[in-house]
């Protein structure tokens, strides 16, 4: 099996990582399309240097984050304003959809805290988060704690105003 075929299979198995990171950082549909192709291209270009020191999924997560955060986007996710009760997402039944709130709260964090929180929620420990971001472990731990507090606070506030 050629190197290209192996790469294609690995990417197909881990395509969710690319999809997820792009959804978290990019709203513009055209940017999403461009970035999706750019991530695949950059991953392929860097693949020769991948020695298997970490899992392919971790390596792809790293390349995807780096590509998304260094790409010149037309529009960045800018949901910094506090939504009122009419803007809060509701499920099909009309009840508050808490996972959508979580997504909204994460998108309101700055881009670096967003990286730290999503890596944590995806099961990476603080040492791995430090390795991916370049922060030291203690700083990553503190930043994660603060970002989680911000999210929880926001969710509590929104629960108070939800229809």
């Amino acid at each position, binding site marked *: 099996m050629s190197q*290209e075929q192996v*790469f*294609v299979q690995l*990417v*197909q198995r881990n*395509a*969710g990582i*690319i*999809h*997820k990171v792009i*959804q978290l950082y990019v709203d513009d549909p055209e940017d999403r399309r*461009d970035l*999706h*192709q*750019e991530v*695949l*291209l*950059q991953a*392929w*270009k*860097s693949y020769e*240097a*991948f020695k298997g020191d970490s899992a392919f999924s971790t*390596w792809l997560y*790293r*390349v995807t*984050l*780096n*590509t998304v*955060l*260094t*790409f*010149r986007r037309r529009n*960045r996710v800018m949901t910094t304003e506090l939504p009122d009760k009419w803007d809060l997402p509701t499920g099909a039944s009309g009840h508050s959809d*808490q*996972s*959508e*709130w*979580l*997504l909204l709260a994460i998108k309101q964090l*700055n*881009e*670096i*805290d967003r*990286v730290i929180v999503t890596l944590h*929620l*995806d099961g990476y420990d603080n040492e791995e988060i430090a*390795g*991916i*971001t*370049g*922060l030291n472990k203690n700083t990553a731990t503190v930043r994660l704690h603060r970002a*989680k507090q911000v*999210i*929880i606070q926001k*969710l509590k506030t929104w*629960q108070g105003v939800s229809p």
Partner: protein
Amino acid sequence: MDLQQEWQLLQEKQFSAPVLPEADILLAIRKDSQGPIAALQKALRWRLFFVSLFLLFGILLTAYSWHNPELRLLMAVFDAYYLIGLVLSIRQLRLLQRSASLDNNLRLTLTTYYRVIKNAIRTDEIVGLFMYPIALVLGFLYANVEAGDTLLQVLTNSRNWMILLIMILVLTPIFHIFVRWANRKAFSKYLITLKQNIDLLQ
């Protein structure tokens, strides 16, 4: 609310990726990059094209004016200047190619991109400040010497100095402002965001 549980729900509802066809992956990895480094490389290749063009023009004129020692000297300066420009541009292009790796940690990647892009823009502005005006000045001197004057005559004529001065004073800022405007339009917001993210990673 259990964040982990809600996150799992999100993964199932929103983040489950559609199957990525092999053909789409192969197409993507054969396309040209749309990234900022690729954009700079493209701009640099254009500069390389102009420097090569000026150099080729200079070499042809040097050969054509070989019989005239003054013109020969003038063209030697011209050729040396653009030869240095060519070497520096090729070196910068190689540096850009080497810095494009995206599998380092985030802080290193952002810092490298910020430094490389800022340097490339600064170099572009400095080169723009000299490259086109010098070509114009040398072209002016060449045309006068070719018309029958000696280089000394051209350089001691106050009218020529006035024309040269006006050319430099008018055209140099125009080129410089244009290059700065183009770079600012392309990279200013981007560099601010990169810097903000780097600061957040300190």
